[in-house]
């Protein structure tokens, strides 16, 4: 247990150092921008991983919470002239309340049915973004989202925004790590392994599933907030069904029930399209092919898969 904690501390210290190092040494604004997107996607994957990877509950509608975060801050800052720093907690709270209300009936479902339920929810919210034109700008999108500023610091530069996003990522990693290593985290994993047994040892499975659903919605909304103030323009397409599937893919490819897997999955799914521009019209084909190959050869995701390969290599050396 203590070993585990020391190892975690070292991991997070190295991770923080890497963030600082990357932020100060990388000059190319394009790279900084890509890394910032990786950070936002990592938040999305991390939140969903808490729900899917740890508690074993699938959601095919999480882009809705991503969208509520983005549209929430857009509406509050532009229509109501609210400071973004007040819009942030408001947008997160909105996503959490929606998750709570939707979660009560939906989380009674399991397996495919939960998938369908959340899918439907995601689509309804997306239609709302698209059709409620007077508030959301409709299909043509929402323009004029303000730049983030904090006192004298403006987050208009790529480097500052990079630090802001990765600061949130680091904090979120630590929050999730602490939950996982606690009584609550153990109960979540117990639900994953067997819901019947979990309730037979005293875990209020309904309440806990709802709690983690609300928590994962909060992370998605945070990502939505950061996305909106990075690109200043949002449209419903970004928060569609495809976005929900991308989030699930990030979790599965990176590694279920793994915090670092969220980072790996988000990195791969952000970088692949950038690298694959060279294939122009064949981009999607190659993209799909790579995902298929990863899943065939590393079915437990990149993190677990790479660890397995490493362990196997070690065993070979021993003999």
């Amino acid at each position, binding site marked *: 247990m203590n070993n585990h904690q020391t190892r975690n501390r070292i991991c997070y210290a190295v991770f923080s150092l890497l963030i600082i190092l990357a932020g100060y040494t990388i000059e190319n604004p394009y790279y900084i921008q890509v890394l910032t997107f990786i950070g936002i996607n990592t938040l999305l994957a991390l939140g969903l991983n808490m729900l899917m990877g740890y508690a074993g509950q699938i959601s095919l509608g999480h882009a809705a919470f991503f969208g509520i975060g983005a549209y929430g801050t857009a509406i509050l800052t532009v229509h109501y002239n609210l400071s973004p720093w007040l819009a942030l907690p408001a947008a997160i709270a909105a996503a959490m309340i929606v998750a709570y209300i939707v979660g009560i009936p939906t989380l009674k479902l399991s397996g495919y049915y939960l998938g369908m339920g959340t899918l439907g929810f995601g689509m309804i919210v997306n239609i709302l973004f698209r059709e409620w034109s007077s508030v959301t700008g409709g299909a043509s999108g929402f323009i004029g989202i303000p730049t983030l500023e904090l006192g004298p610091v403006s987050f208009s530069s790529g480097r500052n925004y990079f630090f802001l996003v990765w600061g949130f990522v680091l904090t979120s990693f630590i929050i999730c790590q602490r939950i996982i290593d*606690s*009584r*609550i985290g153990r*109960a979540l*994993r117990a639900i994953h*392994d*067997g819901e019947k047994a979990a309730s*037979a*040892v*005293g875990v209020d499975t309904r309440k806990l599933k709802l709690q983690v659903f609300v928590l994962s919605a909060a992370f998605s909304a945070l990502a939505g907030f950061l996305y909106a103030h990075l690109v200043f323009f949002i449209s419903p397409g970004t928060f569609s069904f495809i976005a929900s599937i991308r989030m699930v893919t990030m979790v599965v490819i990176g590694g279920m029930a793994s915090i670092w897997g969220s980072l790996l999955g988000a990195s791969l799914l952000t970088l692949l399209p950038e690298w694959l521009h060279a294939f122009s019209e064949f981009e999607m084909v190659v993209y799909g092919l790579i995902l298929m190959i990863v899943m065939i050869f590393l079915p437990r995701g990149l993190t677990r898969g790479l660890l397995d390969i490493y362990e196997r290599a070690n065993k070979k050396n021993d003999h």
Partner: protein
Amino acid sequence: MTTELPLLEIKTVFKAFGGVQALSDITFSLNPGSITGLIGPNGAGKTTLFNLISGVFPVDKGKIVFSGTGIKNKKPHTLVDIGISRTFQNVELFESMTVLENILVGQHTRTRCGMWGSILRFPWVAGEEKKAHQFAMELLDFVGLNGHADKTSGDLPFGWQRLLEIARALASRPKLLLLDEPAAGLNIVETMQLGDLIKKIREQGVTVLLVEHDMSLTMEISDWIVVLDQGEKIAQGTPRTVQADEKVIAAYLGTAGKKTED
């Protein structure tokens, strides 16, 4: 035995699934600190009764009273909180988790740290964790699994998984422990050790209700036997009287009535 208030009372309980009457008019009670064996042929309704007592299904008619309070409409997790704990016929461990973690989850109702407690790591949380670890280690020692705390529970041999499941059920400090066929799949030596363990559990003041097909084990360790057949209680009494009961012999062996030896 002195006349104490019973720990658990089953009062004229009925339960049907669709058109099938799984249990009808079942009445019996458990004295505190006793081991009661619930026996009967396949389909007698033993597991159904277990599921009613542990809150998996509601009772159709009748009442189940635990420690003086009715358990109607109480969810399984609440019943664990008030002192009823159980194991499963097919062993339901949290297989991806370690032996230690399984027992820590077993203490869920006896620990308090919530979402905020875990994120903010209040000072008392560390103390609670430490105590939980200590108790988990004591329990592993108690069931004879010391030294295996960090193994993945799904990798344990089957007999040890049984022991771990019992340890996990004890982790909630129950007053009543329901064991659903704990000897199923165990060899003779393991079954004997299990019998000793169940007696040791009773010595800790825990009342035990046991569904079991292994007659020699049930008859040896139980103070009281309740016999079900086709959803009805056909006999109850000490192991000796039940074994001599003609209805029981008929239910098990058909009307041929070959008498089992002690």
